[in-house]
C-alpha cells in the first residue's frame, strides 16, 4: 500500500469517541435551508400554513446537480425566512416548520428492499428522491456520484471511514454501532455501479470500529477492509484513492475518472435507510465536542438551530468564544448561535481560544514546511506570497484550483500565515476575472 505525500499529524482530540450515539430531543422549530448541497438550491413545494408530515418532501431538487429536502418533524410551515447559512455565512432562504410534537411520519414504503430486483437507474432515482448527499462535508449529491457516464467503468467503491479531522467521532461511532447498515449500503452502491469490489478504509486510530467491520465482512464476499496509517488529510478523496489503490485522480478530474467512487460511511448508512426503510435524509449523527463538558454523538434533525442544541443538551457555553461547524481543520467558524444544522454538518465544536493574537501573521521565511506537507504537491508558500501581492498571473502558474483546502499549509506555517484562506480568496478572484 502506498502513502500519499505530505500530510500532518494534528492532536487527535477525539474526546467524544466513547459516547454512544444518542437521540436528541427535537426542537420546536426547524429551519431547512434550500441550499444544503453542491449545485442549484432546491425549490420549495410547500407554502405558509401547509401541514407537513415527518419525512415529507418540502423542497424539490432543481436540475441535475441538486437535492430534495424533507421535513424531520410533522407540523405547520411557518414560512420561508432568511436564516444564516453555516457554510455560505450569509442569510439565505430556509423553510421554517413549527413542530406539533407528534412526529406523524409519512407512510414508509420500503419497496426497494430487495434491491437486486430493480434496475440501478430506479434505485438512483429513489436515492435522489430521498435527498441524499455526501455527509462527509462536501455535500455532493449522491445520485450524481452513483450514475457515472456510460464510458466510465467503475471497479472499486470505497467506503470512507477515515475521519481524519481532530475532534470528530461521528463516523467512528457509526462504524461501531451501525456496521451492518454501512456494509449493506456499500453493497447497494456496488450493485448500482456494477463494481467488482468494495473497500472499507479505516484509520488505525479506530481499533474498535476496525474490529466490528472486520468481523462483519468475514462473511461478505467482494468487500475488504484496509487499515491505513493515521494522517491528516487521509479522508480526502484523492489522497484516499492514492493510498489504497495507488491511482492518481487527474487534475480537474473526479474519482470516477480512475474507476473509483468514494462514499462516506455516513452516506452509505443513509443509502441503506433509504433503500431498506424508505426513509429520506432527515437526520444525521453530529459530534458535539470541544472545550465543554457535555460531549457526545447525537442524532440531530437537519435544520435544528445550534441554540436549540445548546438548550436541549444543557451545554455550558459561558466560556466558549468560538463555534465551529465541522472539524477544526476545515470547519467553518459561526458568528452566532442562530445557525441551523445542514446535511453536511458532521460536528459542532465549542472552543475556547486564548486571544485574537493567533491571527497575527508574519512574512514568509521560506522554511518550506508548507511545501512538504501539501498533499497536492503544490507550492503554498509562493501562492501565499503572490496572492498577498495580487500577482494573479503568477498565482495561476502555481495552480490554486488544484488546492483541496485541507489547511495543512496554514497549520504548519511557522509565520502563522493564513495560506489556505488566501488560496480560497484567490480562487474566487480568479473565477470572477475569468468570467469578465
Amino acid at each position: 500500500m502506498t502513502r500519499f505525500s505530505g500530510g500532518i499529524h494534528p492532536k487527535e482530540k477525539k474526546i467524544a469517541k466513547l459516547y454512544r450515539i444518542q437521540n436528541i430531543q427535537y426542537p420546536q422549530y426547524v429551519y431547512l435551508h434550500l441550499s444544503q448541497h453542491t449545485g442549484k438550491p432546491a425549490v420549495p413545494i410547500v407554502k405558509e400554513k401547509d401541514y407537513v408530515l415527518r419525512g415529507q418532501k418540502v423542497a424539490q431538487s432543481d436540475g441535475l446537480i441538486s437535492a430534495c429536502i424533507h421535513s424531520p418533524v410533522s407540523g405547520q410551515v411557518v414560512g420561508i425566512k432568511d436564516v444564516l447559512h453555516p457554510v455560505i455565512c450569509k442569510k439565505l432562504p430556509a423553510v421554517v416548520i413549527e413542530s406539533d410534537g407528534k412526529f406523524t411520519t409519512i407512510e414508509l414504503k420500503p419497496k426497494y428492499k430487495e434491491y437486486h430486483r430493480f434496475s440501478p437507474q430506479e434505485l438512483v432515482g429513489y436515492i435522489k428522491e430521498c435527498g441524499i448527499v455526501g455527509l462527509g462535508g462536501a455535500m455532493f449529491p449522491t445520485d450524481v456520484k452513483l450514475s457515472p457516464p456510460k464510458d466510465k467503468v467503475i471497479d472499486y467503491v470505497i467506503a470512507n471511514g477515515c475521519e481524519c479531522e481532530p475532534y470528530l467521532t461521528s463516523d467512528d461511532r457509526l462504524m461501531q454501532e451501525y456496521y451492518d447498515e454501512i456494509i449493506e449500503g456499500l453493497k447497494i452502491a456496488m450493485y448500482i455501479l456494477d463494481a467488482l469490489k468494495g473497500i472499507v478504509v479505516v484509520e488505525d486510530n479506530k481499533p474498535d470500529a476496525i474490529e466490528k467491520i472486520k468481523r462483519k465482512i468475514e462473511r461478505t464476499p467482494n468487500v475488504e477492509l484496509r487499515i491505513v496509517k493515521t494522517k491528516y488529510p487521509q479522508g480526502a478523496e484523492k489522497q484516499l484513492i492514492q493510498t489504497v489503490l495507488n491511482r492518481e485522480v487527474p487534475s480537474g478530474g473526479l474519482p470516477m475518472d480512475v474507476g473509483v467512487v468514494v462514499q462516506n460511511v455516513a452516506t452509505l448508512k443513509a443509502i441503506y435507510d433509504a433503500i431498506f426503510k424508505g426513509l429520506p435524509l432527515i437526520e444525521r449523527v453530529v459530534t458535539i465536542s470541544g472545550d465543554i463538558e457535555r460531549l457526545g454523538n447525537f442524532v440531530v434533525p437537519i435544520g435544528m438551530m445550534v441554540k436549540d442544541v445548546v438548550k436541549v443538551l444543557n451545554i455550558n457555553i459561558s466560556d466558549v468564544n468560538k463555534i465551529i461547524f465541522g472539524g477544526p481543520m476545515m470547519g467553518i467558524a459561526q458568528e452566532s448561535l442562530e445557525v441551523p444544522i445542514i446535511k453536511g454538518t458532521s460536528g459542532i465544536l465549542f472552543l475556547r481560544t486564548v486571544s485574537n493574537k493567533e491571527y497575527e501573521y508574519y512574512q514568509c521565511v521560506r522554511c518550506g514546511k508548507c511545501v512538504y506537507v501539501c498533499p497536492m504537491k503544490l507550492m503554498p508558500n509562493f501562492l501565499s506570497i503572490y496572492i498577498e501581492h495580487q500577482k494573479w498571473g503568477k498565482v495561476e502558474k502555481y495552480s490554486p484550483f488544484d488546492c483541496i483546502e485541507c489547511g495543512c499549509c496554514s497549520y504548519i506555517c511557522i509565520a502563522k500565515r493564513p495560506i489556505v484562506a488566501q488560496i480560497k480568496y484567490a480562487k474566487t478572484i480568479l473565477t470572477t476575472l475569468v468570467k469578465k
Partner: protein
Amino acid sequence: MEKADKLYIVSPAPHVRKEHSIQTMMLDTILALLPAGVVSVIIFGVYSLGIIFTSVTFAVLSEIFVNLLRRQKFTVSDLSCIVTGLLFAYTLPPRLPLVIVIIGIFVAIVFGKHIYGGLGYNPFNPALIGRAFVHIAFPQQMGNFTFDAVSTATPLTILKHFPEQVHLIPDVSKLILGNYSGSLGETSVVCLLIGYFYLVLKKHINPFVPWVYITTVGLITILHDASHLWIYLLSGGLFLGGIFMITDPVTTPVSYKGKIIFAVGCGLLTSLIRYWGSYPEGVCFSILLMNMLTPLIDEYTIRKKFGYKK
C-alpha cells in the same frame, strides 16, 4: 426571533495550528550555535567572547535602529538578528578589533537584511554580507589570525601560500576538536556537528544538504590534492557554512531538489575559489553567489503536482 446575545469569533480554517513559530525556530538555531561559541572562548580566549557579545549586542541595536527609522513594529523578538549576530561573529578572526565587528554587523543587519524589507525578503545571507564587507574593507585585519597569542596562518592559507610549512598544520584529531588557527566558530567540527544533530532532530534543516555540500567539495579536492583531503575538509568554514548557512531557509531554494542543486553549486564555487582563485577560503563568497541564483533555481524546480502527467 430574538436577537442573539453574543457574537462569536470568526476566522478562516484551520482553527488549530502547530505550536511553533519563527521565534522557536530561531531559538533552536541559537541553541545549535552555542556549543561552537563556548568552545571558541576556550580555544581563543576571553577576547572572542567580547567579539560574540559585541556582535550580538550591535545586531540587536541595529535592528532597533532600523525599526525606529522605518517606524515599524519592533522585530527583535523574532530573534533572527541574534542568529545573524552569532553567525557573523563566528566567521571572524579571533583578534579582530571590536570597531570592525560593529561596522560589520551594522552592514549585515541594515544592508544585508532590512534594506530589502526585513526577515524573509533578504536575497543574501545577512551574516555573510557583513563578513564579505569587512573582508574587502579591512583585508589586513581580516587576514590576521592569532592562535595561542601568536599570529598563525590558517591551515588553508598554509596550503595555498606557504606549502613549505605544511608540517605546521595540526593533525586530524586537533582539526576535529577545533584546537587550531581559524575563524572563531568554524574550527570545532565536533561542536558544529552537535548543532547539526540538534537542528535535524528539530526538523529545521534538511539532513542531507550539508553532506551534499561537503561531499562535492571533497570530490573536487580529491582531483586537486588528494593528499591533504582531510585538512581541506575539516579546516576552514565548510562545516559552519554547510550546517548553518546553506540551510538558511530564507536565502536558499524551497524544494528538496532545489536545495541539492544549491548545495552542489556552493560546493563547486567553494572549490573553484579555494583551489584556483586568489583567496584561501571560498565558503562565504560561494554561498553569496549561489544566493543570487536561488530565485532561478526555485523557478526551475517546481515539482510535479498531484494529478498531472509530468
